[in-house]
């Protein structure tokens, strides 16, 4: 039988994690419970859902938003600071599953699953998010694009838990964008996800550019060639075409049961172009 631990505090959760590094971490279950029948039962489960120290939105000493890893997407959607300072994340949260899923699914769970189609993950890349992880040895923070290391893998240590996500203090100044192209309007798995943010100079030039995609590679990625193409330039139609072409070198989509590589490539380019056009 599977052992089930539901620690009442973060300290006890970290102790359980240290003691049982082979136990499955369950943050809401919206992903893990799908297909649970088909997989061998885990040795044990550490159920983190609802752990108070992991929930909620606060501000870190640097002035940036700190989102507890156990915060549900439903909770993110009702938070004014998230809506005004992280509109791309707010928009992504609205398209996670449906209301029932949003009530259980958590930001930390999305990060922990580390799926190439995780709805919030391209936003974390586009908004320079950092992941705060903890163990009984202490805490550390690392940029999300270092944290996510590949197809459904990440840099979480065997005794660590994802505790929070941090955003830069001035993130609200950036122009942000989000678009999910899924199999249908709701309850849908993404075919292509696009998240972006830019800062503009007084003359309109792009001084900072972040372009990120999901579902077009083995992991969520930043489109670095596209970013380079955009940074330092003034958006216009020609630049939009150039950025659209550049991002194609950043992505490597595949054919699967949900879409085709050709479609994903085509749409990814068009979304990047649409974003640049929206800045022009």
């Amino acid at each position: 039988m599977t052992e089930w631990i539901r620690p009442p505090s973060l300290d006890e959760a970290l102790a359980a994690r240290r003691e049982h590094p082979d136990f499955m971490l369950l943050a809401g279950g919206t992903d893990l419970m799908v297909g649970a029948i088909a997989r061998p039962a885990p040795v044990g489960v550490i159920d983190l859902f609802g752990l108070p120290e992991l929930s909620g939105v606060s501000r870190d000493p640097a002035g940036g938003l700190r989102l507890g890893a156990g915060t549900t997407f439903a909770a993110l959607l009702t938070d004014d600071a998230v809506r005004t300072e992280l509109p791309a994340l707010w928009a992504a949260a609205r398209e996670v599953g449906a209301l029932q899923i949003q009530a259980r699914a958590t930001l930390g769970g999305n990060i922990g699953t580390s799926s190439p189609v995780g709805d919030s993950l391209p936003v974390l890349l586009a908004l320079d998010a950092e992941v705060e992880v903890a163990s009984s040895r202490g805490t550390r923070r690392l940029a999300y694009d270092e944290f996510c290391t590949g197809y459904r893998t990440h840099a979480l240590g065997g005794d660590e838990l994802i505790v929070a996500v941090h955003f830069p203090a001035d993130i609200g100044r950036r122009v942000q964008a989000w678009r999910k192209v899924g199999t249908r309007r709701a309850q849908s798995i993404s075919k292509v996800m696009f998240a972006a943010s830019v800062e503009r100079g007084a003359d309109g030039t792009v001084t900072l550019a972040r372009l990120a995609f999901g579902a077009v590679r083995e992991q969520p990625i930043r489109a670095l060639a596209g970013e380079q193409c955009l940074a330092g330039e003034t958006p216009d139609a020609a630049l939009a075409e150039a950025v659209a072409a550049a991002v194609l070198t950043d992505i490597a989509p595949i054919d699967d049961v949900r879409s085709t590589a050709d479609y994903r490539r085509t749409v990814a380019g068009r979304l990047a172009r649409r974003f640049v056009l929206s800045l022009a």
Partner: protein
Amino acid sequence: MTESNGSQRSVGDSPPRVDGTGKVTGAALYVDDLPVPGAWHGRTVRSTVPHGILRAIRLDADFDWSQVVVVTAEDIPGRNLITLIVDDQPALVPLGGTIRHVEEAVAVVVAPTRAAALEASRHVTLEVDALPSIHDLDAALAAAVRLHGDDNVQKRLEIHRDDADIDAVLAACDHVVEGVYTTGAQEQMYIETQGMVARWEDGRCHVVGSLQCPYYVHTALKPLLALGDDEVIVGQAVTGGGFGGKEEYPSMLAAHAALASLKTGRPVKLIYDRGEDIAVTTKRHPARVRHRLGLRADGTLVAADVDVLIDGGAYVTLSPVVLSRAILHATGPYRIPHVRVVGRSMATNTPPHGAFRGFGAPQTTFAYERQMAKAAVRVGMDPIAFRRHNLLRDGDTTATGQVLSGSVGSDAVVDALEQALEAEPPTPATRFGTLSAPVRRGRGLAVCFHGAGFTGSGEARLMGRATVAALPTGGFEVRSSSTDIGQGALTIFTQIAAQALGVDPVHVHIAQASTDRVPDSGPTVASRTCMVVGRVVEQAATALRERLETWGRSASSAAPAASTASTASAPPTAPTPAPGTAAGAGAHDVLALARRHLDQVGEVAETRTYEPPAGVAWDDDTYTGSAYPVFGWAACLVDLAVDEDSLEVTVERCLHAIDVGRAIHPRIVKGQIEGGTLQALGWALWESVPYADGRVANPSMTDCIIPTSSDAPELETILVEVPYAYGPHGAKGVGEIPMDGPAAAVASALEQALGVACDELPLLPEVLQRLVAQGGAASIGASS
């Protein structure tokens, strides 16, 4: 036709569904909810290859089999066969037998828990000599692998309107429009997966399950188990949707559960999980229709030459009748003097395709309505005017030589559609989200008909029966094998019987559809439940009322003092004279009469058998005559918008005007139309069942998607009522017709929006992207 007294009027109203409270509160017991003490659980072991010879079934020697029973073909007491149209499908592939598709059942493992059965099933391995396999129509036609006869043709059917040389007629036409239309498989995705419980008692096999047609299962189990009519009892549990998916496949589950129960000596539950259900049960037939249409310069249709291919899968199952309905609808609701239709159902190494709402007609409707859209453009006519110019009307003759007589709503549905178009359209749903692209818009139209009831001489052969009885406990019971699968049969039968009896609907009970309690009314399919069986229910109820009234008149003259008890049992509504009450018989309503009859004489029941209307004659050899007793008629209009970046489609408006004869329960009828319309939009735009080497590649609700309410437009449903003289209160079939037209309307709207021919389904964004890339529309996706 009976119109009873006004105070008991129910037909035409929309009372609460009789099964509504139980379903909403969770009190309703679906098959997996039934308490079955001591039941073990079955799990089916299936092939791993699409074609081969089964050599051995091996049980893992390291696994503990002490609490597991393994059922194989050797445990079958009768014939190893799922009886349907052709005796070709085994219940379990025997050793040395041929495996014809990848989900073919080889054994059933039975264990005390579902988890144990699943685990045990993973420790069974098969030794199979694999054979080359074929998985699509082209491979079936090439016949390099022969699965059925020399040519893989499971069934060939032809319609010839006349003796003219169709090629010569077409060559002489001013215009010939030609197209090839392909449509994909579709999953029914009923909310409740398939399930069955079997137990043996006193040498009799009792089966209860999620199913549409108890007598189909009954027919299949008798030879399998070598039992007689009364030794197999098949009942329906509350069923969560069918759409045709629970027409024939439940016989397979019932066979497996019954054999498992026989061998274990225990009740056995066999409940499919969603993945298994999607992978193994029947889907809508993939089809390819080549359609040539000849017309004069003035838009008058002259000739149609149609070639219909459907993928029947590994066994014949229901494909011959699906093919029949496909070809009988292949030229649509239009006057066409010269017609040739050839249909073939092809064998492939794919799990058999089967019944799904529309039953072949949606595939050919897609083809002919795309043709009509193109033809209207070709001759430069407005799409509606073009259809009006050619529509079948009362007195016209169909492709099979059927002269339409009565209840022809072709103009009425188009009138209704045009009227609705004049009204202010609803505000289209705007796309949620940022970074939206410009859209292209298009409008598409479809006009179609759908034959109600069984094809050809089917209803005459079926002789559907229904009984209405007075119950010893008071009130009346309707006994029929027509099942409520969510479509509202219980409620409309209650309405029809109550009104014919002249009693309040609370006094009418519908018996559980179990073969030991109800007569064979025929299957719950083919848009026939209300029109055909409802009519028989009405006749039986009317006969019972008349019999009671006749008895009441003679009894009251003999014994004028009615018992006080019968007076007290009057319905809670305002007391009114019973219908047809003869002067001098006293104020006895039918309920009181029935009570008195039970007290003084005994039980009373009336059974009636369906009789086709006079003049409905069909010749199976020449495929001529009255294909259906009557047709439903529909007009559908779709407005849609296509996102230029993603080619995602938003259906902004969907108008659907349907001639239903008479709506017994308008809210249920509208619900049927809305559900069918969305199912059709889903088939057109979102629903895809890809196969890889004969195996469903997306067997989950995550990937095998259907539209959600967020994808649905505000459906504008218009009920048109052109009464049918032989349906109850004028009603005719409505269950399937909403499935037929919308896909063609969607495709024509997309063609207008994107400027490329949209002749295949589903029109996923990936398909649209391919079509746009291939076929011009160069500006799509360019800067804008």
